[in-house]
């Protein structure tokens, strides 16, 4: 095992995090970090024998070596070369897993919104962390989440006061500068949205260069009573990169949560969404789109856990799989005995454009309540030949007919994106990739 391998990195990073805590070492949130390390030590990294990792083998990821302490070499000038959506927002940059004050722009952050780095929050907001940090994450079940809880020292902590509508989106741009070496980063975000408040938040992941990036990220989002949250996660990493991320959401009464998880590129991508419906009259929308090509691998795992009655959840994931790419969709819906009158829907639709592409879908419903409406469906197919013939018979060349159909297929998800400039930007990337 090399010095920079993940396993050897964990013990060192844990010590470092603990030594940085000073006075807050005895805080409850830190107890959870210690427990998480223990959980990881007993879990170990998953193998394909693990039911949740059957189609996503992390062996190469785990055996890789990564620099977890690389310095940032990017300036504002460098960022100009990035093609990015033109939008007004609160822009927060992380490079190689470290917050970059000089690159970020928090000018639009308003009074009822506080944004701190995790380091700052550990010093200044231990109460907030005690209340929420790792309260919605399954450290005892998922090894990557457990590592994250144990060792993450970077990320942001967002708190929106009650009765506040935050106009501008909070955009987290996570860049791995892999022009020279393999880079690893562990990021932990906590977003606490107060009662009757509204916020939009986006995470975007990008590599610069051809070496390998490994990103382990966990974002916890707490949506209080009557609050509304729109959440976006966009991956556009190189083919040598690994992304393992979880977004864990907790919703209270009358709250609204919307997520769009869009993977444009990435060598190995695992997106987990764990949503807990812990209130009545809750509305949840989960959208996903992935368009892997070459030998990219995209795995989306979602869990929607209905614990209280009278709520609605709706899930639509769509994939276009090209070349030798592989995809996984695993969607679980739990409806607990107490959660009567739940409406829960899940749909996963895929198009494979080559004989060598593979899609694995596994929808799972577990329902203990008797008065519910639930449905799930998963389909994987080729493009409709008759439709291609029809379009060609009108003079549209085959490649164009295929492209039009794939774009139309993806449009269901793209058209749902509520930030216009992000929609245009992503639509452009998808056009490029499917063209």
């Amino acid at each position, binding site marked *: 095992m090399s010095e920079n391998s993940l396993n050897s990195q964990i013990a060192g990073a844990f010590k470092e995090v603990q030594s940085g805590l000073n006075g807050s070492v005895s805080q409850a949130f830190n107890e959870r970090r210690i427990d998480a390390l223990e959980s990881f030590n007993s879990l170990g990294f998953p193998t394909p024998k693990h039911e949740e990792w059957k189609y996503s083998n992390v062996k190469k990821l785990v055996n890789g070596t990564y620099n977890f302490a690389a310095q940032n070499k990017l300036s504002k000038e460098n960022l100009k070369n990035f093609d990015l959506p033109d939008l007004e927002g609160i822009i927060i940059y992380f490079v190689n897993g470290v917050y970059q004050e000089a690159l970020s722009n928090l000018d639009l952050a308003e009074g009822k919104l506080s944004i701190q780095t995790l380091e700052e929050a550990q010093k200044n907001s231990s109460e907030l962390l005690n209340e929420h940090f790792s309260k919605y994450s399954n450290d005892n079940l998922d090894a990557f989440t457990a590592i994250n809880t144990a060792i993450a020292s970077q990320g942001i902590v967002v708190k929106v006061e009650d009765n506040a509508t935050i106009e501008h989106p909070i955009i987290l741009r996570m860049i791995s500068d892999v022009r020279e070496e393999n880079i690893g980063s562990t990021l932990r975000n906590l977003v606490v949205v107060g009662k009757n408040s509204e916020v939009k938040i986006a995470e975007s992941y990008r590599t610069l260069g051809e070496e390998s990036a490994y990103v382990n990220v966990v974002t916890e989002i707490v949506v209080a009573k009557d609050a509304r949250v729109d959440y976006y996660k966009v991956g556009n990493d190189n083919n040598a990169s690994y992304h393992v991320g979880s977004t864990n959401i907790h919703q209270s009464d009358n709250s609204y949560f919307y997520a769009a998880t869009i993977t444009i590129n990435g060598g190995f991508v695992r997106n987990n969404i764990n949503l807990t419906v812990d209130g009545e009259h809750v509305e949840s929308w989960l959208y996903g789109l992935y368009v892997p090509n070459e030998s990219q691998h995209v795995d989306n795992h979602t869990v929607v856990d209905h614990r209280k009655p009278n709520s609605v959840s709706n899930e639509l994931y769509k994939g276009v799989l090209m070349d030798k790419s592989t995809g996984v969709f695993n969607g679980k819906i739990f409806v607990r005995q107490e959660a009567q009158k739940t409406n829960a829907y899940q749909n996963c639709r895929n198009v494979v454009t080559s004989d060598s592409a593979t899609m694995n879908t596994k929808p799972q419903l577990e329902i203990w309540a008797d008065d519910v409406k639930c449905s799930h469906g998963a389909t994987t197919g080729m493009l409709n030949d008759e*439709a291609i013939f*029809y379009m*060609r018979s009108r*003079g*549209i060349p*085959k490649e164009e007919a295929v492209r039009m159909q794939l774009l139309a297929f993806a449009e*269901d998800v793209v058209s749902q994106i509520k930030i216009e400039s992000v929609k245009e930007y992503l639509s452009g990337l998808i056009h490029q990739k499917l063209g």
Partner: protein
Amino acid sequence: MLKISNLHARIEEKEILRGINLEVKSGEVHAIMGPNGSGKSTLASVLAGREDYEITEGSIDFLGKDLIDMAIEERAAEGIFLAFQYPVEIPGVTTVSFLKTAINQIRKHKGEAPLDAASFLKMMKKKADLVKIDGQLLRRSLNEGFSGGEKKRNEIFQMAMLEPILGILDETDSGLDIDALRIVADGVNQMKSAERSFVVITHYQRLLDYIVPDFVHVLYNGRIVKSGTKELALELEEKGYDWIIEADEAKEALAQ
């Protein structure tokens, strides 16, 4: 304009066209009739280039070019249009954007500049009036959720937009009520010109009351067994196909 000689085509191991000979000159309307399974729709599909069929013998000459080796989209660009018996639903693609792409691809093939948005819209309005199709319908996904009649009208609308040299109507009358039939036929009649020809495939004489053919052919068992003028259609309406089938079978038996 179109000359089909000794055309044989099969799908998998089944031979469906067994020596078709047909010549269509500019400005003519030819009706092709015949009982179910005689090969009418296959002939239409083969002309449009459907790839499920294998041509084993014969030739198709269209305006001096060999059609058989031409890609489907190339045939369209050269002026062939097939109105489908079962128009396909294409979710997420509106009729408007579909036709705009089609027209501009055809223009590109001919070395012409793309049509500007204003001219396209003007043309669309004019042609939509021709088949009395609702503009709102054209802004919806192509054929998705359209009624049978709307789909067929949309086929004729597309034909009007693409202005082909040869229009092939594959059982366009099936599933249409008399009013819709009249609208579709009116659209076709208004498109008739000295340079444009039509091949109208139909099961029933009814459509030919509205689109009057210059010639009527009876297709049976993969061959044209009888040709005549529009009076032949009336005769078929009255007597059915049996007398032709019997005569053909007698002829085949004699040949053996």
